[in-house]
């Protein structure tokens, strides 16, 4: 489709003005520290991994939120996302299906999931594919418990993902990007930097080049996912990674992808790798 020079000029001007936006109280990310429940010290800022050129420091989304929102995550009884964790715990203990097994029947106490969130998504040798936490959960349900898979972005799935994230809170994200994971990582990286849609924005346009600036009234973060599932004030519920990706792409007026599909699998690996070193925060509280 041919775009006239004038149209393209307007497009770029609109994009530039929208993105540079109102740099209000400067782009100040604060220097607060996140100590959860007064006990668990979270790493919310750290040196960017070597393979990320565009950032010197990686910063958790927590820092980009208002003081009031930050406070909501600091105590497990202020954090409404913990309601989802409670529901996930109930599901963990619920015996079901023809095998009459609960998650606990095989995995024991959920604390056995310690460390799992930090390496997701990862390459699964047997399946010869990149698997997310949701894939592992559904695989257990369909192959071992013999029950129906949960919808990829459904409430029960997101609750379970939050429960498992809690077991790794405070531990640094550490996804592998080499070996069999490499092709998926490359695909994700290309997606991250490719401009798409009516506004011709890539993930990097906002989350790398403009992190810290305001887009209208939103304080742009680096788009890290170490805090997912995230309890969003906007919809007052837990949101999973692919659900957020889908909304983000749609909001840039591009055709978005299917949660659970191959594009978002690759993107999740790449985006997770951009946050390697940040502590698992799930469930976090965001706007």
């Amino acid at each position, binding site marked *: 489709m041919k775009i006239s020079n004038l149209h393209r000029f307007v497009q770029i001007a609109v994009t530039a003005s929208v993105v540079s936006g109102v740099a209000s109280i400067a782009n100040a990310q604060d220097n607060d520290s996140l100590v959860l429940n007064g006990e668990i010290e979270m790493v919310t800022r750290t040196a960017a991994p070597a393979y990320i050129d565009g950032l010197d420091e990686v910063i958790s989304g927590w820092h980009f939120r208002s003081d009031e929102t930050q406070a909501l995550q600091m*105590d497990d*009884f202020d954090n409404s996302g913990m*309601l989802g964790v409670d529901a996930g715990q109930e599901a963990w203990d619920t015996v079901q299906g023809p095998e009459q097994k609960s998650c606990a029947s095989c995995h024991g106490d959920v604390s056995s999931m310690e460390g799992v969130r930090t390496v997701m998504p990862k390459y699964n040798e047997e399946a010869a594919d990149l698997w997310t936490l949701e894939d592992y959960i559904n695989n257990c349900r369909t192959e071992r418990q013999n029950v129906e898979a949960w919808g990829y972005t459904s409430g029960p799935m997101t609750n379970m993902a939050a429960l498992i994230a809690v077991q790794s809170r405070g531990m640094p994200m550490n996804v592998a990007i080499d070996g069999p994971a490499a092709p998926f990582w490359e695909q994700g990286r290309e997606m991250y930097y490719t401009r798409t849609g009516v506004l011709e924005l890539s993930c990097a346009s906002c989350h790398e080049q403009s992190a810290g600036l305001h887009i209208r009234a939103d304080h742009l973060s680096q788009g890290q996912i170490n805090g997912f599932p995230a309890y969003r004030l906007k919809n*007052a519920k837990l949101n999973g990674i692919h659900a957020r990706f889908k909304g983000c792409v749609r909001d840039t007026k591009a055709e978005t992808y299917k949660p659970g599909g191959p594009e978002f699998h690759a993107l999740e690996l790449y985006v997770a790798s951009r946050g390697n070193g940040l502590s698992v925060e799930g469930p976090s509280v965001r706007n």
Partner: protein
Amino acid sequence: MASGVKPRVKVPKTAAAGEVITIKTLISHKMESGQRKDSDGNIIPQSIINTFTCDFNGQNVINVELHGAISTNPYFQFEATVPESGEFTFTWQDDDGSTYTDSKSIAVS
């Protein structure tokens, strides 16, 4: 009864006699405000938790009247005086007639 409504309450396990403690309560509830419309343009009727009460050993600590402007998953933080060992009981009442309860014991040293 609205489904999946679960409380989550924080009460310290122990206190000194007469101490003032902080209590935090959360309950998972949609709090349908009565302001939203469905896809046909009809108002979705209000369906909220309308009352929350906290008592201790039969005496009242606090009673809250809620309206549709209380956010989904109603949260309350307040303080209670603990005269002796005993049990806090928490009660939420739903527009649909259901009652949800929780309780937490506290030991006074």
